[in-house]
Structures are given as C-alpha cells and as structure tokens.
C-alpha cells in the first residue's frame, strides 16, 4: 500500500508534465503543419514568377534587371530558410496578427514571441538576414524606379511590365510584414 502511493504520484506528475507540454505555447519547436504559407514559400514563388517574366520580356536590359532582382531574392531566400528560421518568422507574424485581432494581448503570447525573436537573433548573430533584406529592398526600389522611368515602353513588353509591377508591389508588401 505504501509503495503504491509514490507510483500513483509519479504517474500523476508524468500526466501533468505531458499535459503541460501539450498545452505549452512553445510546444513543438519544429514547424507544424498548421503554419501555412511562410515568407520562404512566397519568395520561392516570387523567384519562379520573375524567372518566367524574364523569359517573356523582349528587352535585354529589362531581362538583365529582372535577373539582378532574382539574384537578390535568391540570396535572401537561402538565408531566410537557414536553420528553420523561416518557420519561426512565420510563427511570429501569425502571433502578431492574432494579437492585433484581439483586444488584449495575452501574456503567454508576448512571452512566446519574445522567445522566438531571441531564438532568431541567436540563429543569426551577424544579422545576415536583415542585411539581405535591406539589399533586397534596395534592389526592388531601383527596379521599380527603372520600371517607372520607361517612357516609351516596347508595346510587346507592356503586359510583362504590368505583371512585373504587380509582382514587385505584392512582394514589397510581404517584405514589410517581416518581423
């Protein structure tokens, strides 16, 4: 009878620990299936579309400029997916969105976000991602300027130019959302 008590207690504490792990906001450090689309996914699609647009453009200079933007996007992508950082970034963004949609901010959410941000800093102490991101921003800015400066666009490239503008606008929106 005496021996049964510690066993029951340890079983109870094991259950409690399991429950805590399951309910803990930091449960599962690995990216889960519910995360949905990440910035890395968007970047991959951006690169894919820009490459297609490059093949569709009739202007060699335009194709060269698209190539430069794609190269920067590829750099950013390779850094953004390093060491699972992409999924952490997505988590932070989604938590931010949740918090904005709620009236109050949950303390546990705030704590989890701080943790994730700390992890991100530890993963990238040199701030390579931030540098790549600002280079990407600069490249996109220059590209947008040159798209705007084309006074007499080749009519054959008109549709491609419109598509490029849309892609750059949409991708810029994504960049601005990055934590």
């Amino acid at each position, binding site marked *: 009878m005496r021996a049964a008590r510690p066993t029951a207690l340890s079983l109870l504490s094991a259950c409690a620990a399991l429950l805590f792990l399951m309910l803990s906001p930091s449960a599962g450090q690995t990216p889960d299936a519910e995360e949905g689309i990440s910035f890395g*996914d*968007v970047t991959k*699609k951006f690169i894919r*579309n820009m490459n297609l647009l490059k093949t569709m453009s009739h202007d060699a200079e335009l194709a060269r400029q698209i190539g430069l933007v794609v190269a920067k996007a590829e750099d950013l992508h390779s850094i953004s997916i390093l060491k699972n950082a992409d999924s952490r970034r997505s988590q932070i963004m989604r938590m931010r969105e949740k918090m904005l949609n709620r009236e109050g901010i949950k303390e546990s959410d705030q704590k989890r976000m701080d943790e994730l941000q700390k992890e991100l800093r530890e993963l990238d102490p040199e701030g390579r991602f931030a540098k790549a991101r600002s280079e990407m921003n600069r490249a996109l800015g220059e590209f947008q300027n040159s798209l705007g400066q084309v006074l007499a666009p080749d009519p054959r490239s008109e549709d491609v*130019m419109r598509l490029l503008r849309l*892609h750059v606008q949409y991708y810029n929106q994504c960049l601005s*959302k990055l934590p």
Partner: protein
Amino acid sequence: MPLQTSLTTLAVLLLFGLVPLAGQDTPAGTEPAPAPAPDAGAQPEAPEVKASNARELLEKLNAEAKRDAERIKEIESILFPYEDKVAMELFFMASGEYAFLRRQSESARTAGRFFQAQQQIDRSSWDGVSIFFDTAYDAMRSGYLWVGREQGLINEDVQLFNDLRTKVQEEMAKRPDGQAMLKLAQERDALLGKSRASAPLLKYFNERRQWWKGYPDYEATVKESVGLPAPAGGER
C-alpha cells in the same frame, strides 16, 4: 443575417431545381434545359416520382452537356482551320495569329473570374500574396497575358476580335464552301449559348446541392423524405 440569406438562397435554388420536375414552367435563363418527359400520369403528388424525375433530369442534363461539348469540339476542329485560313488571306496574318486572338478573346470570362478573385486577395498576408503568385503563374504559363491588365483592356480585345470575326464571316458567306462553315459556326454559337444557360442548373445539381447538404440547417429546412428521397445509388 447571412444564415437567413443562405436559407433563402437554398429555398430559391431548390424551387429552381424542382419546378421543372413538377412539369411546370422552366425558370428564365435555363430555357434550353430539356423538359422532363411530359408524363400525364406523373402529376407530382407522389414525392418518389419527383425524386426519380430529378435524377433523370440530372442524368439527361449531364449526358446532353457531354454530347454538346463533344459536338463543339468536333465543329471547332473543322471550322477553326477554315476561319484561320480566311483570316490569313484577308488580313495577311501569320499562321496561328487569328487562332491566338480567338483564344485570348474567349478567355475573357476566365479573365473576369481572375480579376474578381484578385480583388479578394489580401495583399498584406503571405497567404494572399502566395495565391496571387500562383494564379498569375498559371495564367502566364497558359499564355494569358491579361493577368496584369485592366478589365477594360480585355473588353477592348474581345471587341477587336469580334470585329475581325465579323469580317471573316462576311468573307466566308461569299465563298461556296463557306456557307456550310457558317452553319457550323451558328451551331457552335447555339451550343455554347445553351451550355451557358444550363450551367447554373448543372452547377447546382452536381456541386452545390452536395455542399448544402452538409449545412447545419439543411435537414431541418428541406424535407427530404417528402421532396427528395436519397437516390438508389446512395447519394447521401
């Protein structure tokens, strides 16, 4: 409020589906839908008869839609090369150029749907942007360059193609073998019109009805035991 609207829509749709079954007037816009066999003995007091007619009607519609689609394809395989040849001679177009214009102009409806979907995209979310990139990519790969265009420009393209087509058809009318082709063109237009008219009914029966059946209030509202017993094939 949305629930109320949904239920009203459901009621309207059910009514829409059941009216022809009861052998009454066909709803406006679905004129080409084949009327169920006018069976005097089937004046629908008995609900089983209604349901059986509903299935028959659906089968008939599906079969007819399939037949029409095949016929349209068949006509196109004869008509389009002829039209393209006339256009090449008339406008000195390159081979395939007229066919390309036709395809672009006939994709206007697809373009309309694309623009509508695009308006609903939430640009500030990664999911929204990802959807935009995917839809744009698919459209670009299919050769639809209207992705970045305005609806007005698409309409202009359609108008331009229709003007060219009128000229091509005028020329066809002058040629001895063109008369038969014009008849084929008219048949194709009629079949396309018919398929557009019966599309809502088919969409309802083939897709939306199943969707509505999963709706929480469906069973409470729709008395299936009276109006729509489950078909023998085990629809439910």
